[in-house]
């Protein structure tokens, strides 16, 4: 089941096209990475999903229904540029955000209690945000995003601005939320967190969708069919031109393209040359795919 289905979405600001023919499906219960350089159109897409702005054409479906104000209660949003009322107390503030999302007062109170307890910060409930440290305020900010128990959580650059301790905390919370079946859309530049967290990704560049699919599929699509082989040679090696010697010594490490062979055939050839220590395919990192995609599509 897909929690979001986006078809032919388009948005133009004056002369500038922010989104063009975006077709995207986000499966329920996954962590979905939304990638792309600054100004690519990510924030515009996120704002449309949050119904802050409207698309010019195309449609967005939430669990098969056309996106409408009643879905606001089921979406949680942590914007890249975020803040809280400085003069408002933690408790009042969280209750306010929960109720704005449509949660009844009694339930909101239980939830706020639950989260303050969970993050072990009950002592702050009567404190004003301006009296909290930045890290403390970040925790409150995160609670404010998830307090109404949304089915879809949209986090725009969640790790920027958070200190490493809080970033770790949020990472764990994200994983925990996925366990509960909540879908998380993660917009970020940080490719290492994409590799670590995301099940699916989509990449937007210059207002167009240039890539989408499950993380594994995407990586498979970009593999160069090069294998890394470490072996203790029986005799000095005579390498073909397209092979690369990475390190030499008692153990030699080589990068060998697959060419017309399949991996098993390559392995059986290698076995004849020495004692195999390691045999693995070189999978491109998301970072490499990201940079390569930007280069490719910028040339167009």
């Amino acid at each position: 089941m897909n929690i979001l289905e986006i078809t032919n979405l388009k948005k133009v600001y004056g002369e500038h096209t922010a989104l063009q023919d975006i077709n995207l499906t986000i499966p329920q219960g996954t962590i979905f990475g939304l990638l792309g350089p600054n100004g690519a159109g990510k924030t515009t897409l996120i704002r449309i999903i949050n119904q802050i702005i409207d698309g010019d054409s195309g449609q967005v479906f939430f669990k098969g229904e056309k996106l409408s104000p009643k879905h606001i209660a089921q979406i949680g949003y942590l914007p890249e540029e975020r803040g809280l009322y400085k003069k408002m107390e933690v408790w009042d503030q969280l209750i306010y955000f929960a109720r704005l999302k449509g949660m009844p007062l009694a339930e909101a109170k239980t939830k706020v209690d639950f989260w303050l307890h969970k993050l072990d910060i009950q002592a702050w409930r009567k404190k004003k945000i301006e009296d909290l440290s930045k890290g403390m305020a970040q925790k409150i900010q995160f609670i404010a995003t998830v307090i109404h128990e949304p089915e879809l959580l949209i986090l725009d650059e969640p790790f920027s601005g958070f200190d490493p301790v809080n970033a770790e905390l949020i990472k764990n919370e994200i994983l925990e939320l996925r366990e509960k079946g909540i879908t998380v859309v993660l917009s970020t530049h940080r490719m290492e967190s994409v590799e670590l967290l995301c099940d699916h990704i989509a990449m937007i560049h210059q207002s167009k969708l240039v890539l989408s699919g499950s993380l594994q599929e995407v990586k498979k699509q970009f593999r160069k069919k090069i294998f890394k082989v470490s072996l203790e040679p029986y005799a000095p090696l005579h390498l073909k031109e397209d092979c690369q010697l990475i390190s030499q010594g008692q153990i030699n490490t080589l990068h060998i393209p697959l060419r017309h062979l399949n991996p098993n055939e390559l392995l059986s050839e290698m076995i004849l040359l020495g004692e195999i220590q390691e045999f693995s395919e070189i999978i491109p990192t998301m970072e490499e795919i990201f940079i390569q995609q930007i280069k490719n599509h910028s040339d167009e």
Partner: protein
Amino acid sequence: MNKVFLVIQREYLARVKKKSFLLATILTPLIFPTIMGLFLWIAVGEEKGEALRIVEVVDENNLFFLESRDQYAFSFSNLSIEEGKKQVQSGERYGFLYIPKLNLESPSGIIYYAANNPSMSFISSIESGLKRRVEELRMHAAGIDPEVLEAYRTSVSIQAITLNNSGEEKMTDATINYGIGFFTGILIYIFIFAYGNQVMQGVIEEKSSRIIEILVSSIKPFELMLGKIIGIGAVGLTQFLIWIFLIAGVSTIVLGYFGMQMPQQTAMEMANPEMMDLVNMDSDFPHILAVIMEINFIQIALTFVFYFIGGYLLYGSFFAAIGAAVDTPSDAQQFVLPITIPLLIAYFGLFAFVLVDPTSNVSFWLSVIPLTSPIAMMGRASYGVPFFDLALSMSLLIIGFLMTTWIAAKIYKIGILMHGSKVTYKTLWKWIRMG
């Protein structure tokens, strides 16, 4: 709509809970009496504390006499002008009044020399003293005894009564109407500015602290704007209610202290015609009370509340739009100016036209055009406004407020998500057309 109520509640409580609200609410009604008391105290202290001011008078006619009073004393002599001036220059005398030989039919050439610019009241008191003496002399010359004339001097005052087509009579007094119009008009002017500004600051706060994007993912920008304007307006109404109770309470205590009955009670008695006959009509006090009784306070109060709210809503949405368009309060100044202008026009129009002649053409237009009517109409309301004028003005105000809110909402909706871009009138116009 439920969410609008949440925003109203937050905006209201966030302000009412503050200590500064309590302080402002309690202290503001005390500020004006305090300032007046302070001036009075200084003035009294000044008169007591200062040395006697001696003014040298040279009267070439030997006809005039000026009585010393307050801190002024007059010494008469036959010095020359030059000598008199020297006395002022050397500080020996506070001032020097020179009265040349006068033609009593058209006296001129009287000069007063002093180191300091003399006050208006001082000059006019000397003038009236001299004038009285000249008149006396001229009457003597014409064979009229001034005392006889004084005996015939009579005071006449006109009792103004308005008469409507059903024959109902009402006592009126322009001074009281003026006072009410003046007071309520200024109150609305201050309210629009003070609370409109709070709306603007509130929007800027939400925008600059970046709460706004979280808010608009939960609630429509229009609902958010409306909730903020209504919530802050409710704070203002609360403040005024407290003031009314405070003033009523204080006046009860003060009047009680002076051994007087509450004016309302006296007025109630006055309303009884039989009682009225018993009261000495020459005294001003019962007359004023009778006039106050005749004023339709409920109507004025309702009119006041309507224009108070209407005017605030009309301008409040403009203030919200400005707050949304800019990043910092200092950027807001250039946009606040144009909405200050109609308010100032209304404010000066109230004094220059409406209170002076509530039925003139200018007064009519000022009290009908929505941008000026909230202030200007209050100047007319206390005199009584024809039903047609009131209905027209109120409907136009409602239409005006719906229109400004509609325009402001468009600017607001786009502005709140724009950061760091320089906003000009051209951009605002673009946003209005886009929205």
